[in-house]
């Protein structure tokens, strides 16, 4: 498992979250300046310097459910509010989208191009905001500073990595997404996902940059001279890659994975079907009590301590965003969600308190359990019991 994976996971899932929120804000006719403010608040939380410092520290990946608490908090970094069912759906969509991107990456290294596609789009979200010019200047100032720091982190972490190290990163990401087969209607419609929740792997199109189109056997003599050339039928229908995507700050990424696939006429929908119950065997994570949960919580607390959340107590009234078309659908989704996809265990509500050594205690103290409280002897055991349920 690569300890360099978390930044890529966080940034790409964050990028997908912004795409979805942007689309839902439009669909729900939230006024433009209010919608932009929401996205800006989330983006500035994501790229907060202290948070970035924690994010880029070498560390193992969290479990799917632990990472969800990070996004839960991030999504609520603005005046917008999401209820449980909408948050579940948002996280499902984000994770399935990035799983698709990682799976289809031509080379392991190209997961960086996917990240750049997300970052390019995030840049677009910030620039496109004439209505709140007075804030933009401030954001730009902060952003230039943060951008430099962020790019330095990115360069330091991924700059000199070998193909082997990127392969390990990709394997780590795929391990994170293993056994996740939620069906997304947009993917089903576009025929990139099968009805059993598995993604379609194309056997045509360009081969990865640096790879030859399969179908040729070449034989050499002991002096290295080619003595025989035989073609064979590979079975796929590939062409040479036109060019390599740009890994520079600006440039043509070539790869389309990681760009915004939503638009007003392509609404966000998920199918949570019972069928996935049978298709996805339950993972270790769900069944085995995890004695390491306390440690994970510790890591999580440190990471989230870096997040600055604005309380929605300002002059602007908050609003609720619905990931579903109607409130009834949302209620229905909450009721029919398959049990193994349930995240309803912890709800960490960290506040502005920045003191490192107090964070864990605070988060432990504020941990809310939404199902029945378990009976256990000590506070620490309680916490473990809760995390077991994760």
């Amino acid at each position, binding site marked *: 498992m690569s300890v*360099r994976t978390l930044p890529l996971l966080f940034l790409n899932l964050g990028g997908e979250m912004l795409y979805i929120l942007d689309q839902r804000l439009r669909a729900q006719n939230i006024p433009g300046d209010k919608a932009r403010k929401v996205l800006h608040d989330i983006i500035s939380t994501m790229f907060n310097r202290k948070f970035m410092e924690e994010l880029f520290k070498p560390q*193992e990946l969290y479990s799917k459910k632990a990472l969800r608490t990070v996004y839960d908090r991030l999504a609520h970094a603005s005046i917008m509010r999401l209820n449980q069912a909408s948050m579940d759906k948002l996280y499902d969509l984000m994770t399935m989208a990035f799983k698709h991107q990682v799976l289809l990456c031509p*080379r392991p290294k190209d997961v960086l191009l996917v990240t750049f596609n997300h970052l390019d789009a995030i840049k677009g979200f910030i620039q496109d905001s004439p209505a709140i010019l007075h804030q933009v200047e401030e954001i730009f100032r902060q952003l230039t500073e943060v951008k430099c720091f962020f790019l330095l982190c990115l360069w330091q972490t991924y700059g000199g990595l070998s193909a*082997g190290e990127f392969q390990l990163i990709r394997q780590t990401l795929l391990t994170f997404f293993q056994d996740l087969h939620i069906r997304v209607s947009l993917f089903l419609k576009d025929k990139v996902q099968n009805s059993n929740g598995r993604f379609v792997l194309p056997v045509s199109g360009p081969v990865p940059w640096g790879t030859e189109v399969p179908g040729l056997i070449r034989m050499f003599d002991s002096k*290295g001279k080619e003595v025989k050339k035989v073609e*064979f039928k590979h079975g796929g229908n590939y062409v040479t890659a036109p060019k390599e995507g740009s890994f520079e700050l600006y440039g043509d990424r070539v790869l389309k994975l990681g760009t915004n696939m939503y638009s007003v006429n392509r609404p966000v929908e998920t199918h949570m079907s019972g069928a996935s119950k049978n298709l996805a065997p339950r993972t*270790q994570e769900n069944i085995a009590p995890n004695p390491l949960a306390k440690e994970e919580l510790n890591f999580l607390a440190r990471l989230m301590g870096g997040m600055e959340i604005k309380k929605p107590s300002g002059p602007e009234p908050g609003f609720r965003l619905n990931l579903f078309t109607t409130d009834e659908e949302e209620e229905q989704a909450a009721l029919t969600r398959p049990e193994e996809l349930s995240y309803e265990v912890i709800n960490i509500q960290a506040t502005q308190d920045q003191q490192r050594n107090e964070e864990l205690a605070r988060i432990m103290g504020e941990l809310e359990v939404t199902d029945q409280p378990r009976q256990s002897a000590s506070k620490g055991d309680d916490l473990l019991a809760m995390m077991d349920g994760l």
Partner: protein
Amino acid sequence: MYVWVARPRLLAVRTCVVSMVAVDSQGPQDSAVRMFRRERSIPLRGSAAALCNNLSVLQLPSRNLTHFGVVHGPSAQLVSAAPEGVPLAQRQLHAKEGAGVSPPLITQVHWCVLPFRVLLVLTSHRGIQMYESDGSVMVYWHALDSGDASPVQAVFARGIAASGHFICVGTWSGQILVFDIPAKGPNIVLSEELAGHQTPVTDIATEPAQGQDYVADMVTADDSGLLCVWRSGPEFKLLTRIPGFGVPCPSVQLWHGTVAAGYGDGQVRLYEASTGTLHVQISAHARAICALDLAPEAGKLLSAAEDTFVHIWKLSRSPESGYTEVEHCHGECVPDTQVCGARFCDPSGSSFAVTGYDLAEILRFSSV
């Protein structure tokens, strides 16, 4: 508790269409050997992890049994099956735990057939576990020393092979650990540490020495694509280094002094083991190769890649020139499956098994 829903899974299997593609464009002869048919698959408790060489097969013809080993993530599953693919027994193994946020991930499981015994070796991000062949008793544990590793370095063991009475295991640092295995009992000793690689070891292949001196009988591969060719013995000797091309070499095999290497850019290359001379280069796959295997009796090579294809090749020595030649025998597409492991299931290469990332079954194919 874990619930194993077997029936719907089997139904799903039947509806999954596996297409046969690409009978070779070359020769018209022996088409009977070339066609493979999908057989009943073996259900797994957990899906296969996205690792290279993520399938080990132990053939026990005397008992009419085949053992399969697949890594799920923090656990690995062993299944034994009758010839028709009926699963008879299964066992779950776990990596020994240590400090860390999550349970350690397993990197590989592999059966090592030694002269007097068979051991199952499991490598993880913590160390090396050796079991009796059925996985019932752990006979040896070797913890990895992360000593001089930087915090960004992933520490793990990977690449397992038996050579004589030794078991060789590769590590993250590029070292090959050589363990001396007694005919019975747990008295296993780390006898040598071989230096040759600078990047993490990916795979190790061996073949029985033919009795000659200075014969190359072990090859090791790494993340940079470098291959090291060794002669085994009380002291292992590095014979040749075959430079890489900047892409990893996830899988290697050794057949009659010929090294077969599968690379991250879909290429398969065949080298003379003793000299490192390149004999054959195959643009075999459109994505990274994840597994090679050999059927030594038939001289058949199997290559499997993330492009969803498994190819079978026939290797031969040209009688006139003495060079290694290759012929394409069969191509099999496993639709929408990022293949992560593939092995022949018999010494003649007339059947093979395939695992795929996220897929909770072992797919089986045999020649018609």
